[in-house]
């Protein structure tokens, strides 16, 4: 049995009590899911994560992917686990029911995503990339393309990939060189090299559908001249008698990267040599097509951060309760044993509580954002859709960077709880540190997220996006400021809220004179906004917990736990906003003064 136990109770707490998803019955997809169905779905996904996926995680890391003659073999157990995942219908969770999906709201897909990421981050990349391809084809494909690809992708018979990065360009995709030349039959011939292609080649599916960004000759320079193409590994062509001929397309994996972690996920160099491709969406609108999926994809990576962090917390807290060393400072906790469990030590508790405060706060904020994605797309009221869309636009970079930074930090703290035993491989926690590291990089590094926040999201529509977060926080403070029971929560929230408003004004004002003032503090500002948003979630959770305890809930222990962790967050994590404000308002000078040659 693996160590991982899905936090089902906490998911239901967030969905039912914090977000009140049952109130959205009028939004497409929500009406089908009541609390008992949500419980069953989450419970069954939890079983799959705990019993099927988690047990292959460590072995997958040890074996890695094997590459020979263009063929990638995934570690043992991966094919069986992938079958179970696909046959269970978990790939098409929120895909269109017309093509075999289940049409569930995004917020439930987020819950399932966290469990799978906790069970195995490397494994989750394979179905995760398929979901991305499904979404791209659903939104931009022709009816024929949808008919051809979606049922196979949703059933997990075919895999999917995203081919963006090239050897000379990652962040700056305007520099893409891969060429797509139109052929007589209207299809395209693609030539070029793509790198860092997750799941580019593997043995889990019978075909792989590559989505590839390329340039049609004669297109405008830069990002306005990029188009998106579907390039299948195997091409099927039917003849008049209805028999199918399958040919291998000229796209091959030329090598697999050796890397720090995520070893069971194949990271491929893909070579396109006059490979046949089909335009997806309009020509020269490829970047826009990619970006429509970006919010969901970045939320997905943010949730990977929470997943790893939860897994690390579970390992470390179990260990801290079992491992006996030294004595509690105020006298032995277990006088008839030779030593006390290390959980008695304040520093160990500091580490564990930091991890737990991140996990539970981030879970609530991530699911709130997931819910807003659903509302932005499907709510009947236009104003609600726009407000939700503003919130998603603002929070996507914040939670992507913040939660993956916290995921890595948390895995690292978890390792620290194990001492030397954490540094050796057998305990399994060092793998989490290595695996978590990539989440801060792919789908846009934390630094890029910070620039997106400060450079694009803050100034957009004269600061309108920010109001989608600030208004609810402000109202909450107004409504609950007088409640003596909540003062441990509302007071620190109000203080940090004032600080982040101050930081926002500073950046807006000084950034207008010199954009480097904004950029120098961008990461700090992102962290600060993330902490304040988490504080708001904690204050809301505290309010619910207090009222449940007053009502005499049977789950008293659960709600008291929430209050304890929430108090820790307010007292020990949120004060970081003070130092962040100082850093932000020191401006560009401390980081830009030294000449580049001096480095």
């Amino acid at each position, binding site marked *: *049995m693996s160590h991982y*136990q899905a936090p*089902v*109770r906490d998911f239901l707490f967030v969905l039912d009590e914090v977000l009140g998803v049952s109130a959205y019955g009028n939004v497409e997809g929500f009406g*089908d899911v*009541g609390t*008992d*169905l949500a*419980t*069953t*779905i989450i*419970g*069954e*996904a939890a*079983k*799959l994560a*705990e019993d*099927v996926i988690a047990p292959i995680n460590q072995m997958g890391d040890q074996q890695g992917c094997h590459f020979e003659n263009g063929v990638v073999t995934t570690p043992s157990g991966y094919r069986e686990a992938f079958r*179970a995942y696909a*046959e*269970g*219908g*978990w790939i*098409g*969770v929120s895909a269109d029911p017309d093509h075999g999906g*289940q049409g569930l709201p995004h917020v439930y897909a987020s819950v399932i995503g966290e469990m799978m990421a906790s069970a195995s981050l490397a494994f989750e990349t394979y179905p995760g990339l398929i979901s991305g391809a499904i979404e791209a084809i659903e939104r931009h494909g022709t009816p024929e393309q949808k008919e051809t690809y979606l049922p196979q992708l949703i059933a997990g018979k075919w895999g999917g990939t995203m081919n963006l990065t090239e050897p000379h360009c990652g962040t700056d995709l305007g520099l893409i060189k891969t060429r797509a030349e139109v052929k007589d039959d209207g299809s395209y011939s693609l030539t070029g090299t793509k790198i860092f292609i997750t799941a580019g080649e593997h043995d889990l599916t019978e075909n792989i559908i590559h989505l590839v960004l390329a340039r049609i000759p004669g297109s405008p320079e830069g990002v306005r001249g990029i188009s998106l193409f579907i390039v299948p590994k195997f091409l099927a062509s039917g003849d008049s008698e209805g028999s199918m001929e399958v040919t291998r397309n000229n796209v091959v994996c030329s090598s697999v990267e050796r890397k720090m972690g995520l070893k069971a996920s194949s990271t491929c160099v893909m070579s396109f040599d006059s490979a046949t491709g089909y335009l997806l969406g309009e020509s020269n609108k490829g970047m826009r097509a990619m970006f429509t999926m970006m919010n969901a994809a970045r939320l997905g990576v943010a949730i990977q951060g929470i997943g790893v962090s939860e897994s690390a917390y579970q390992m470390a807290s179990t260990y801290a309760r079992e491992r006996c060393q030294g004595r509690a400072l105020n006298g032995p906790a277990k006088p008839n044993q030779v030593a006390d469990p290390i959980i008695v030590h304040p520093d160990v508790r500091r580490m564990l509580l930091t991890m737990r405060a991140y996990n539970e706060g981030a879970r609530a904020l991530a699911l709130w954002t997931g819910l807003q994605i659903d509302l932005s797309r499907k709510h009947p009221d236009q104003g609600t859709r726009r407000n939700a869309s503003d919130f998603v636009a603002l929070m996507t970079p914040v939670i992507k960077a913040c939660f993956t930074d916290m995921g890595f930090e948390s895995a690292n703290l978890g390792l620290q709880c194990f001492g030397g035993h954490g540094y050796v491989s057998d305990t399994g926690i060092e793998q989490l540190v290595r695996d978590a590291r990539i989440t801060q990089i792919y789908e846009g590094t934390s630094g890029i997220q910070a620039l997106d926040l400060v450079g694009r999201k803050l100034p957009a529509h004269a600061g309108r996006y920010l109001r989608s977060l600030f208004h609810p926080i402000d109202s909450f403070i107004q409504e609950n400021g007088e409640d003596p029971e909540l003062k441990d929560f509302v007071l620190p929230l109000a203080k940090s809220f004032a600080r982040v408003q101050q930081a926002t004004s500073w950046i807006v004002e000084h950034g207008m004179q010199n954009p480097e003032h904004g950029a120098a503090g961008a990461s700090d500002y992102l962290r600060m906004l993330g902490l304040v948003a988490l504080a708001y979630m904690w204050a809301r959770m505290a309010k619910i917990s207090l009222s449940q305890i007053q009502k005499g809930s*049977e*789950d*008293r*222990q*659960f709600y008291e736990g929430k209050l304890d962790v929430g108090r820790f967050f307010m007292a020990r994590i949120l004060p970081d906003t003070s130092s962040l404000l100082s850093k932000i308002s020191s401006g560009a000078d401390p980081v830009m003064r030294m000449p580049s040659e001096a480095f």
Partner: protein
Amino acid sequence: MKVLVAVKRVVDANVNIRVKADATGVELSNVKMAMNPFDEIGVEEAVRLKESGTASEVVAVSAGSSACQETLRTALAMGADRAILVNTDMELQPLAVAKILKAIVDRENPKVILLGKQAIDDDSNATGQMLAALLGWSQGTHISKLLVTDNEVEITREIDGGLETLKLTPPSVLTTDLRLNEPRYASLPNIMKAKKKPIDEVIPEELGVDVTPRLTVLKVEEPPKRSAGVKVSSVKELVEKLRDEAGVI
């Protein structure tokens, strides 16, 4: 042929059981609950009977609080056609459950009823046997293999020292053992379909069943901690100890 399958909501098998401080029972608040694993095997077997064309309908039954709906949803997601919840907040002991099931059997007239051989909470291993007695049906307990034909039920049972094969005349009460099958995971599409399957609710009074507990729980406590063993230096010493101290040979 209709098959009835009984499912019980119990503390999840992975949960560390804690006794309540006042020794009145086991801590159930804030504890993960799940379908009794032996009942899961029963549901799986019933669904397989349906898939092989032997059974025409599979009906899942549970008795307990409204929360048992979740357990029934799981049975429906695994492939049961419909479900019945006998809703009561009373503590249910094996005899009460057997009486409830008898009343349901009288209404539904199944040819076979499958139950777990025991529930992993109280481990009574009694409900199936009591039900068979109340119904006057043939019974096959602890089965590890099942073959149902028109007028015969052939079972293999796990007994001390080996396997016993019996032929029963239906209708029969069957209780499942661990090796009968490996239950499937409910797929997401089937979970979604299960939502549309009906769960009927009745209360014990409507069935004319008195569920008042007949047994009184005096005290619940944890088993004593195992004390450390002793090392022996030779086989001779081991044999002596087994004979003289333990008195087992």
